[in-house]
């Protein structure tokens, strides 16, 4: 990892118009003023409640969800793109440089195309190669990196297992030579024995090809093992962001603490010891006042109900958005 920033988001906001009818202009802020810096060559993890805006944030960085507020920049050597306004040829160029690995290797692959054609398609769509020979050479090169052989390339995807299909999706995402990869729940559908293999492959590819990952996952043990930096989202807001070790050793936000303690223990005699968050996730259309987590926070005080905390960065790279984080340092959440 270098100290150069590849992706920088500043108060990035994605709002969807969800009003029913012409006069109802209700906006759902799926991502709400999120600021992060993703360093070149890093494996940046994004975790959080379902519906917290992880996928939307990833899609916004890929120009697949509308940026309605704030800014995001992609800086790679000579090029620097403002993602909010990117269009035309620059957008085409950006599509080569930033790619998505799909979550579901079953749904994502067309059953009627051979593996070779599936991997080659982005090259053909983006007109990156001139001859069939050139395409084939590129496909073979990337397939080999993803441990797929020539025999595999001739077959159809249904003849493959989940792990192999995920490797096909990865090869397809990498074939255009991108620098930035959004991996959205990319190993969620895989069995653990295969998951470890795909994660090792992603790490290897990151090193070999100098890739930068935004790794979205709800599996905290996977995130702990693969990412060097982790950001935590709740209801569209970034609530905590820190180097992985620091975050797991000493989480600062009450939501992050609850998240960690809810991880199911592998010990069958340790049932029910998990800290359970009470209450439901508030509707994104009817968000709580003050701190968005106060309706479920075991540490909430009056102030939390009226004043929204801002993201503080105390200078150690471990940012947190909570009025009480200093007071609560070292203390267990009391549910």
């Amino acid at each position, binding site marked *: 990892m270098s100290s150069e920033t590849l992706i920088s988001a500043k108060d990035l906001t994605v709002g969807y118009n969800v009003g029913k009818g012409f006069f109802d202009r209700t906006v759902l802020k799926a991502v709400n003023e999120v600021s992060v810096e993703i360093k070149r060559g890093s494996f940046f993890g994004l975790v959080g*409640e*379902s519906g917290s805006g992880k996928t939307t944030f990833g899609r916004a960085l890929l120009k697949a969800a509308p940026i309605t507020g704030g800014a995001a920049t992609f800086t790679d050597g000579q090029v620097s793109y403002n993602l909010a306004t990117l269009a035309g040829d620059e957008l085409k160029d950006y599509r080569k440089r930033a790619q998505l690995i799909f979550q579901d290797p079953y749904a994502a692959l067309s059953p009627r195309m051979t593996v070779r054609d599936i991997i080659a398609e982005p090259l053909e769509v983006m007109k990156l190669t001139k001859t069939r020979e050139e395409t084939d050479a590129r496909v073979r090169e990337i397939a080999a990196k993803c441990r797929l052989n020539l025999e595999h390339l001739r077959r159809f995807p249904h003849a493959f297992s989940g792990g192999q299909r995920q490797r096909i999706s990865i090869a397809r995402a990498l074939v255009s030579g991108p620098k930035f990869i959004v991996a959205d729940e990319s190993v*969620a559908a895989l069995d*653990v024995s295969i998951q470890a293999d795909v994660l090792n492959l992603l790490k290897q590819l990151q090193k070999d090809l100098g890739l930068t990952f935004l790794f979205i996952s709800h599996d*905290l043990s996977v995130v702990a093992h693969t990412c060097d930096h982790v950001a935590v989202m709740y209801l569209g807001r970034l609530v905590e962001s820190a180097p992985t070790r620091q975050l797991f050793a000493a989480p600062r936000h009450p939501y992050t603490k609850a998240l960690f303690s*809810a991880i199911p223990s*592998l010990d069958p005699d340790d049932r029910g010891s998990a800290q*359970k968050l009470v209450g439901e996730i508030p509707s994104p259309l*009817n968000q709580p006042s003050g701190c968005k987590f106060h309706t479920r926070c075991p540490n909430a005080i009056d102030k939390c109900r009226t004043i929204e905390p801002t993201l503080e960065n105390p200078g150690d790279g471990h940012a947190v958005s909570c009025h009480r984080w200093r007071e609560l340092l070292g203390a267990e959440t009391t549910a």
Partner: protein
Amino acid sequence: MTSLIDVENLTLSFRTDEGLVTAVDDVSFSLGKGEVMGLVGESGSGKSVTAKALMQLNPGNAVYDPRSKITLHDEGREVDVLSLRKSAELKIVRGGAISMIFQEPMASFAPAITIGNQMVEQLQIHTGMTKAKAKEISIEMLDRVGISDPSKRFDQYVFELSGGMRQRAMIAMALSTNPKLLIADEPTTALDVTIQAQVIDLMKDLVNEFHMGIIFITHDLGVIAQTADKVCVMYLGRIVEEGPVREVIRNPKHPYTRGLIAALPRFDDLDAPLTPVPGDIPSPLERPTGCVFHTRCREIIGDVCKRDLPENRWVDPSHRVACHLHAKTPAQTEAVR
């Protein structure tokens, strides 16, 4: 424990362009009332196909071996599930006594009908309750699975919900008819842990409250450890190990189960490399001879594994394993371990 469902010698192939593909091979297990069974295994190992067989939900190209038998014990009746033909009979196992939460939430909901209307319709088919009552129960179930604004969500379409919310809506729909057996196929995969913990609690409550049996399909052994009484481990269509959850997790007997446990990322050592089970799962068209796991087994003994199918052996009254390591006399078994 009174048996709720008995599966005997379930063997099932699919007719495909490339010939017959074996998906489930000689699977037998029993589940008692109020018992929670975890079903784990590689992707493609036949977990979903096994589960769907209990409701006859496999598609028309499925071919059942005639030895296959599934018996459901429902309020004094014995239902021979695989002999059910007419849709009126099939109602018993489809959404009646048995309900299933699918792996793909999108598959359970029709895209053009609101979530609420689908729940109401399903309740009316299976219980004959009034529309108003069905609506009340549906909203209550949506609330119980942790969906905010349940009466508003009731009128929404599935595409308007986030992945996790879809999963919860589906769980609500499956539970609303109060089934005897709930099959949950990867029900918490799309959920984050705080909600997963709630859903797991909800499922435990249901077992206690309604004495419902649950088959929990997941690849998360942590979830199994937290919920299941017993576990069946599948590999390439066969159950390779079955036992009480404590035994299987603490003292796994089959090399595949051991590999699965070793592959889990641990929190206690973030630097430890992840250790996958080596190799790829063989294509369903190239089923290995002998022990189906021999192409990836770290503990392979030799030709016997490549040649002979290992038989199930009960290593204690509730723990069985299909592996040549355990087919020998106890002394030799210890020696090779």
